C-alpha cells in the first residue's frame, strides 16, 4: 500500500437539510453534513435509523427534500449520465444474472460513459479486464456468475462500480453476506482502492469494530437524524451506543490503540424472567 497523498481538504459531497419521506413515515430528517475528498465516512446505527435512506438519497434512488451537492454541483440538476459518472453505488443485495460472464458484468459499469443506445468499445472492455485483474479476478473473466463464490461476487460488484470511474463510491452494507475473513478482505480492498484512486467512500456498516478500523469518520444515525459524528473515538461511546442500539456494549481498546466494540447479553446467563 502506498503512502496516502494529502490533498487540501475540500468537501466533495455536501448535503443540506436532506429529508426523505415515505408515504407513512419520515426516514431522514434535515440531515446536513459534508464529506471531504478522499475520506471514508462510515454510517452506523440501528436498523431503520436511516442509513440506507441517506445512501439512497445520495445515490438519487429515492425522492428527497433539501440539497445534495457533489463536486459543488447540485445532483438534482444533473443528467443521469453526469450523475453516474460522479457517483457509483453498490447495493445491499445485488443481483447476478446466472449465466452472464464476469467480464460482461463488469462492463455494465461502463454504461455512464456510453450513449443511450451505444455499445461498449474495445477501450471499455480493456478497462473491464484491467479491473478484473486488479481485483484478482483476471483468470475468471470468462466464467459465468453462477459458478463464482460469495467473496468473488463481492469483488465483482466492486469492479463493476469502479468501472464507472466515479470519484464517489457509496456502499450499502457491502459485506453483510460474507464470512469474517472475506469481510475484512473486502474492506481492505476498498481501502486500498480508495487510496490508489483517491476515491471518497461513504458506506453503511453493521460491524462497529470494523467501522472504527476502516472509516476515517463515523456518523451515528438514530431516528433519521445524525446524533453524533466525528472520529471513532468521538462517536463510539458506551452509553450512547447502549441507548441507540437498545442493548449493552462494552468498548475495549487493544494494545495498538484500536477500538473494539463488544455486544453483551442484557440478562445474566440462565435467567429468563
Amino acid at each position, binding site marked *: 500500500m502506498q503512502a496516502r497523498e494529502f490533498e487540501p481538504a475540500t468537501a466533495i459531497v455536501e448535503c443540506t437539510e436532506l429529508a426523505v419521506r415515505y408515504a407513512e413515515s419520515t426516514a431522514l430528517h434535515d440531515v446536513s453534513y459534508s464529506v471531504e475528498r478522499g475520506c471514508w465516512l462510515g454510517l452506523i446505527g440501528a436498523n431503520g435509523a436511516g442509513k440506507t435512506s441517506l445512501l439512497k438519497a445520495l445515490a438519487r*434512488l429515492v425522492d428527497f427534500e433539501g440539497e445534495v451537492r457533489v463536486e459543488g454541483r447540485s445532483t438534482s440538476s444533473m443528467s443521469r449520465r453526469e450523475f453516474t459518472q460522479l457517483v457509483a453505488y453498490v447495493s445491499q443485495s445485488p443481483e447476478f444474472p446466472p449465466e452472464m460472464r464476469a467480464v460482461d458484468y463488469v462492463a455494465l459499469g461502463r454504461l455512464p460513459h456510453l450513449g443511450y443506445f451505444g455499445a461498449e468499445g474495445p477501450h471499455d472492455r480493456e478497462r473491464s479486464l484491467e479491473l478484473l485483474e486488479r481485483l484478482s479476478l483476471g483468470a475468471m473473466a470468462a466464467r459465468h456468475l453462477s459458478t463464482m463464490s460469495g467473496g468473488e461476487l463481492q469483488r465483482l460488484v466492486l469492479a463493476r462500480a469502479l468501472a464507472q470511474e466515479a470519484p464517489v463510491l457509496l456502499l450499502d452494507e457491502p459485506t453483510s453476506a460474507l464470512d469474517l475473513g472475506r469481510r475484512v478482505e473486502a474492506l481492505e480492498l476498498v481501502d486500498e482502492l480508495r487510496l490508489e484512486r483517491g476515491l471518497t467512500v461513504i458506506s453503511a456498516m453493521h460491524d462497529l469494530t470494523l467501522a472504527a478500523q476502516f472509516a476515517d469518520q463515523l456518523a451515528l444515525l438514530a431516528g433519521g437524524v445524525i446524533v453524533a459524528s466525528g472520529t471513532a473515538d468521538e462517536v463510539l461511546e458506551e452509553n450512547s451506543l447502549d441507548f441507540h442500539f437498545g442493548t449493552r456494549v462494552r468498548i475495549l481498546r487493544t494494545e495498538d490503540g484500536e477500538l473494539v466494540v463488544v455486544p453483551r447479553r442484557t440478562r445474566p446467563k440462565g435467567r429468563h424472567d
Partner: protein
Amino acid sequence: MSTRARERNRLATSPVSPRIPLLVTGLGLIGVILVSTAIGPADLPISTVASVLFSHVPFIHFHSSASAVSQAIVWEVRLPRVVLGGIVGAMLAAGGASYQGVFRNPLADPYLLGIAAGAGLGATIVIVANGGSTSWLPVVAFAGGAAAVSLTYVVGARFGGRSSGTSIVLAGVAVAALFTATQTFLQQQHAQDLQTVYSWILGSLSVATWSDVWLILPYAIVSAAALLMHRRLLDVLRLSEEEVASLGVNPARVRLAVVAAATLGTAAAVSVSGLIGFVGIIVPHLVRLTTNASYRVVLPVSMVGGAAFLILADLVARTVESPAEVPLGVITAFVGGPFFIFVLRSRRAHQGVL
C-alpha cells in the same frame, strides 16, 4: 498471468456477438423457405423455386426458365404465405424474448399482457358485426390487442406502486380475463358466426396474400428496429431495479419503450394470423439454451429463428392432413405445451434460465 494465458483469456472474453448463431439460423431460414415453397399440392423441384425467387431479386437481370404456372404457384400462392409466416414468427419470438426480459419472467409471452384476448375481442366484434366480412378485421384486432396492453400497463403501473413487473403481469391476467369474458359473451350471442370466430382464434395463414405482407411489414420493421436498439439495455435490466437506476438507466422508461415496441409487432402479427401461441416461449429459450443468454444474441437470433420455426410449423399445418389444414395454433401448442414444462423444469434445476 503468462502472456499465453492472457491471450487465451482475451479470446474467451471477446465481446458477445450474435454473428455465428445468426449465420446458422439464417442458413436454416433460407432452407426452410425453399423447402416450404416447394412442397404443396403440386410439388416443385427446389431448383425451380430457387430460380423463380432469384429472378425476383432486384437489380439482377435473371429470367427464370420455369413455366408460367410454376412461377405463379411460387410467387403468388406459396411465397406470400411463407413470407407472412416468417414475419409473424419473427415478431412473436422477438416479442416473447422482450417480454421475458422486461418482466424478468421466463414464461412471459406476447399473450401474457392481454394481446391475445384484446385481439380476439376485436376480431369477434368485426366478425359478428359484418357477418364474416374480414377487411376490417386486422385493423380492429390490432386495436384490440394494443388497447388491452395499454389497459394492462396503466392498471399495473397505477395500482402496483413501484412498477416491478410483477404487478403488470397480474394486471395482464385480470385484463385478459375481462376481455375474454366479453368476447365469449359476444360469441354466445351470435352463435351463427361461431365457426368463423373459432377458425380465426386458432390461427391460420391460409388466406395470405402480398397485401397482408405489405399491411404488417411497416409495423414489423419499426418494432424490430426499436427492439434491437434496446438489446443492450435489456441485458442491463437483468440487474435489480435499484442497480439499473444507479447505472444511469431509467428502468421504467426502458420497460415502457420495449413493451410498446414488442406490442406493436405482436399485435400486427396477430391481426393477420390469428392467435398462435408458444412461439414466443419456444424460440427464445432454444436460443438461450443453445447459444447465449445475452439479449444481444437472443433478440436477433430469435427473430430469424422465429421466422424459420413458424414457416416450418405452417408447412406441417398444411401438409399433415392434406388437403385439409390443421390450425397453426394447434401445431405450435403441440410443440409448446411440453416445451413449457421443460423450461419450467430446467429453470428449477439450475436456478433460472434467464
